[in-house]
């Protein structure tokens, strides 16, 4: 990205001011996160009595919290479970939502309108309102709880509305009909057109949705806690339960555990950021 040079010095001054403002807000944004990093290396007593003190003034700075968190969480197993659930659900919801949104945009019929309206409305259903009905249907009647596949299916269902909503907006604004018509003239079937022509155009929004959905699945606590009770299946957030006591929490281990959960998703974001930016730029140039 090249900086536009119109405006000369005035532009430079405003840019400098903007930069300063940005840095201040940026620090405010990072503050809790910095606190987590600093305190994850301290002992409970120091965390409580002097949460803000700099690391080198504290005695007993150590990686113990990380070691504890790692073993208590059964990190590798929980990591594997989280990975399976997050990856499958993300792939599934991204693909199905893109297809459904594409159908809705291109077929302006009754079913499309009804489904879309219902989906938008459903985004404001409080999860607590369907929590008990959900477990009584899937557990009591169908008896399919405690399987990863059930959780993947539910994650897919719950994030469908939001994903369709986002894809719908993008397809409407950024995918020209002309390309598809050309493809049909060349003799492509509908699915060929979708997978070869439309899907590649969706790259920027796909990257965004992959990030947002995988984050939601990776961090979700309430739904997995309802679906999974078998210890071997617990995901990362569920595996940190034991750090929260009835009367007080084990802050150091919690913060270390949190960082352990967050790092994989941070890597994903850094990797995908290029896609998001590159993709949007490519779309804008069209």
């Amino acid at each position, binding site marked *: 990205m090249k900086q536009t040079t119109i405006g000369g010095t005035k532009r430079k001054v405003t840019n400098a001011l903007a930069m300063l403002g940005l840095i201040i807000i940026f620090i405010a944004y990072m503050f809790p996160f910095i606190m987590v990093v600093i305190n994850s290396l301290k*002992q*409970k*007593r120091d965390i*409580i*009595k002097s949460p803000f003190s700099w690391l080198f003034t*504290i*005695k*007993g*700075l*150590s*990686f*113990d919290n*990380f*070691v504890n968190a*790692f073993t208590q969480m059964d990190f590798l197993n929980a990591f594997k479970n989280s990975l399976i659930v997050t990856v499958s659900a993300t792939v599934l919801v991204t693909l199905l939502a893109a297809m459904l949104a594409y159908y809705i945009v291109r077929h302006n019929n009754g079913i499309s309108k009804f489904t879309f309206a219902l989906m938008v409305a459903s985004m404001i259903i409080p999860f607590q309102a369907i*929590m*008990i009905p959900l*477990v*009584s249907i*899937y*557990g*009591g009647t169908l*008896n399919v*709880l*405690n399987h990863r596949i059930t959780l993947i299916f539910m994650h897919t269902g719950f994030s469908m509305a939001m994903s369709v909503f986002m894809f719908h907006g993008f397809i409407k604004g950024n995918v020209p009909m002309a390309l598809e018509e050309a493809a049909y003239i060349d003799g492509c079937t509908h699915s060929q057109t979708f997978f070869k022509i439309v899907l590649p155009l969706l790259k920027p929004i796909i990257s965004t949705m992959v990030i947002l959905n995988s984050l939601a699945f990776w961090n979700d*606590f309430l739904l997995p*806690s*309802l679906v999974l*009770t078998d*210890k071997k299946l617990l995901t990362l957030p*569920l595996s940190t*339960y*034991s750090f*929260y*006591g*009835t*009367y*007080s*929490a084990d*802050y150091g281990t919690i913060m270390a555990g949190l*960082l*352990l959960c967050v*790092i994989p998703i*941070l*890597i994903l974001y*850094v*990797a995908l*950021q*290029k896609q998001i930016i590159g993709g949007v730029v490519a779309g804008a140039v069209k």
Partner: protein
Amino acid sequence: MRKKVIARSISLGLVLVLMTAMLTGCRFGFASDPDDPNEEEKEVPIDTSTDTFEYDASLSGTNITLLNSKAEIQVALEKMGAEYEKKSGVHVEVMPVTDGDSPYTKVVSLYNSGTPPTASILDTTDIIALAEEKAADLTGEPWTAEAEGYLTEVNGKIYSFPLCIEGRGIIYNKAVIEKALGESFDADSITTQSEFVALLDRLVDAGIEKPVSMAKEDWSLGAHQLQYIYETYEGTSEGAQKVIEDIKAGKLDLSSYNRMSQFLDGFDILKKYNVAKGDPLGADYDEMAIDLADGKTAFWFNGNWAWPNISEAGANEEDEYGFLPYFLNDDKSDFVNQKIQASPSKQVMLDGQIATEKEQAAAKEFLNWIVFSEIGQQMLVKTCNIIPPFKNNPYEPGDPLSADIYAKVHEDKAFNASAIVPNDHWAVLGASMQKYLAGRSDREELISDIQKYWDEQE
């Protein structure tokens, strides 16, 4: 683009550092300092050489689940389950209830999902709500004979196993008091409210400006403090029940009920000497434990469950901590000034609806094993650090708080009363108590809140 490469390498670097640190378990700084409070606690050895318990061999291979709502004994229960499995072949899966999820909600959702736990550790109110609908009848189980006085009956039947006795009062740190006053301190010498105030004043003069810690949490204020007004009626659960019925029926006027005003007198004293007086609702639970252990304060209103926190704050099992009663008045003959409250809190309920006969039998055997086997008895007290409500259990708890409760229960210096109140009592009235604690409401408003709460109950 360069920045991104930097960001990427930083995050990768961070991961690598963390990974190596975890794998090598490295520590730096002064982590091996001798008074490191985080040091691994040494495990209490369990003697497994004698075991006269008779196991039912036909149950071997059965799987049972135990829902645990007492987070601090999660690991201990897992160990206990593993030990029991070694002997009996019955596998016990201990399921935790997580924070942000009440035990009752968890049980309800598990019942709805068709996979209720075979056994659940719950509060007495929850047991009463679920007993007749879901629980297995435990009347006549062998252990009931050993827990006399600690059993909860619902319409003449027993549905729950009392897991532990818990007591509460004003925790004192003996060493701090003695050091400040320069003389030896005998907790039994304080027998009235005035004597307690006199002691507090002497401590203030000796330099401990605010000698009391009190929690701002609604469960502490709404349940542990406020429930004294029911439980001190005559020091029994029946008496507490009667007060509640009378308040509901309008037969007891709270504004003229003597325990109500006495309780508030006691509460006002704690409030006056509160270390967090400037910001009582900003008090931090963990900090209270540290303050008590460090000697910044001398008293903390709490129960024996506070020991893990105090110990984590640096106290040792050899240190002298104990309980003073929650003084209500100056009458030396009034039991409340001489006895502390201690009663069974957590109870185990067995599922009688979905669990198979075999699972129920295995769960029943597990409960009997806790009470009658030498290993179970030891583990209940030593591993879980619980005060057992069972007469036949010869072991004494190791930490000073539990040991003090244990001694008081055996010396008749404790009263066994627990009020059975609706489940939202602590939350709703805890909020009213917070308001009073913060000085944003007066006695009249608090009392009318309590009356209003009971009027709304059916």
